[in-house]
């Protein structure tokens, strides 16, 4: 790291150090290098300097601490101002021939994304580097997300970023992402782990974005899909709210569609709950009784919900 300081001239900068004579609660024993880097960062950040050396400095600090929102925010300002002069525009990233970013070192950013998947500054940062009307950008983001989800299939930030990528491509790109491959991706993940609720949530997002379930034929196919997944384990919590939402949103006979699936799984609390919900009030007491037997630890809730 010490070599770094020789790459640029810092003589004109007066570093700003924290006064540690008081206010020492939870003080971290920083390395001398980190302390020095933060001292210079405060100085150039405070002065609003947009330079190559400042850009290099942010990279040094991020290497030690990728969760530093301040540094990411500052880096973004610099990149937006001078990034294109420093980096090759549309530089090819680590993620196979994709993920170009305006003014940023795509290779470095991708590597960092893969190294620190739980970090959420990075996803937000990537969104700020959007290249509108560049299909490679959106495809590249999908590839990056898939990389992360391979190791961590419920990573909240990665899923959130994927939803953002889809919406933005539809809004800002004349060759946007397509429904079919994304739907196929949820098929694959749900097939691998039918309890992956993030994949279910993404599937619902897709159908909200592309309302293809308005067609009766597609809707029937989807209901069948859910039914098959419920059959794998009827106690799985994920498909039930999904099914209810799909019925409510797209089925002209929401209650009877839901009920027709639920009655196929007798003596199961999740199914019975759906049956009870779709029954006339006077029949609910009997179902409530049964639910209290099946899930006694939720008896208060069942009695509250079905008013019995």
């Amino acid at each position, binding site marked *: 790291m010490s070599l770094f300081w020789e790459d640029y001239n810092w003589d004109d900068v007066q570093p700003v150090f*924290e*006064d540690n004579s*008081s*206010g*020492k*609660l*939870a*003080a*971290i*024993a*920083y*390395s001398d290098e*980190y302390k020095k880097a*933060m001292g210079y960062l*405060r100085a150039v*950040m*405070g002065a609003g300097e947009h330079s190559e050396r400042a850009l290099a400095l942010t990279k040094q600090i991020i290497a*030690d*601490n*990728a*969760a*530093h*929102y*301040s540094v990411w*925010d*500052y880096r*973004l300002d610099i990149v937006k101002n001078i990034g294109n002069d420093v980096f090759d525009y549309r530089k090819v990233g680590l993620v196979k021939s994709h993920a170009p970013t305006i003014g940023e070192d795509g290779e470095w950013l991708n590597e960092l994304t893969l190294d620190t998947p739980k970090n*959420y500054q990075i996803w*937000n940062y990537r969104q*700020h580097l959007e290249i509108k009307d560049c299909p490679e950008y959106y495809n590249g983001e999908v590839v990056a997300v898939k990389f992360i989800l391979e190791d961590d*299939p*419920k990573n*909240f930030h990665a*899923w*959130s970023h994927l*939803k*953002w990528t889809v919406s933005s491509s539809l809004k800002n790109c004349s060759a946007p992402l397509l429904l079919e491959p994304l739907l196929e991706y949820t098929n694959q993940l749900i097939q691998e*782990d*039918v*309890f*992956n*609720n*993030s994949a279910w*949530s*993404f599937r*619902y*997002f897709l159908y*909200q974005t592309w309302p293809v379930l308005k067609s009766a034929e597609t809707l029937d196919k989807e209901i069948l899909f859910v039914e098959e997944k419920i059959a*794998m*384990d009827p106690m*799985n919590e*994920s498909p039930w*709210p*999904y099914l*209810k*939402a799909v019925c409510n949103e797209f089925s002209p006979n929401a209650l009877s569609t839901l009920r027709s699936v639920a009655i196929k799984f007798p003596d199961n609390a999740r199914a019975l709950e759906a049956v009870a919900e779709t029954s006339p009030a006077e029949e609910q007491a009997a179902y409530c009784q049964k639910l209290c037997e099946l899930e006694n*630890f939720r008896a*208060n*809730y069942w009695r509250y*919900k079905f008013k019995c």
Partner: protein
Amino acid sequence: MLETRTLREQRETEDLCVPLLEQEDNPELFVFFRDKHVKFLRGMLGNLSSGFISLDASRPWMVFWAVNGLALMGVDTSELRGEIEATLLKCQHPDGGFGGGFGQPAHLACTYASIMALAHTSPAAWSKIDRKKLCEWLLTLKQPDGSFKMCLHGETDPRATYCALSVASILKIMDKKLTENVATYIKTCQTYEGGFGNQPLAEAHGGYAFCALATLHLIPDLNIAETIDLPGFISWLVARQQHVVPGFSGRINKLVDGCYGHWVGGCWALVESIDEGITELWDRDGLQSYNLMCCQADRGGLRDKPGCGPDSYHTNYVLCGLAACQYAYSNPGKWQPTAQCTPSVLPLHPVYGLPLTTANRADGWT
């Protein structure tokens, strides 16, 4: 036989937790080890090793979690006041709000943590918060759809609205411009599962659920039951607690984690206050068992689950979770607590996340 990653991880967690939960009848083990946790949090306020460098932009949080946790355990923190004040005022930005450390730009999460930590100090320290600048800065983060950005280039989500409105409320700088459209925005974050996510059409998540609901409580004169799908929300909340390991999970088909005792468990007080008919729809004793039998680390401090190390974050929020199961509240707004058992901790202000006495004291400061 169906076998997936979720089932395997769930089974592994049950295998770790069930033997501990079964020892609940042993009065030597079903104990809150207060002194150990006090020692742990005191240590977290001292000098931290270079391994904590990733928390360099979270200094106010480190102070808040530890001080708040100590206070919840009834520790007199008054001798810490001077240092709390000095540490946090270094994080106050000249243009309003607080950053993650000295010389860092302001951020809403750090601002929440700083101000809630300063609520543990004195009216003199409180008066050093630049409210005018803070209010101006909050307005720069406000978006037309009612949401707030976390910081200049930051993301928008219900955490940001919660942080913005809770500090505005406790500092009495709340105004119409801050609350405008917020309820409409929060409503758009409710998902088909019934909980709340970080954005419209997201997956429901305990952290955002708490922030969403607490935000609604901070908007004056709002009819919450008419704003959101309350039955849907309750259904999601109920399902976050399972029978075998009765802590809370943060999402559907995710593992139990001690901190959700607050983020999800803490929603119950907020929901119960909306409608008198909603009472005891969850297993208080179960959450207490999970927190006491599975979340106490041997060397002190509280944790996510057995096998995880303790940290300040989990210590504070497991303690908040204990308050959630050990007290019921009446009179929303004033939050009158009634202990449901012999409590381990002091009652919590269900919206601010401060000990109730601390919140009420700060409420009296001008």
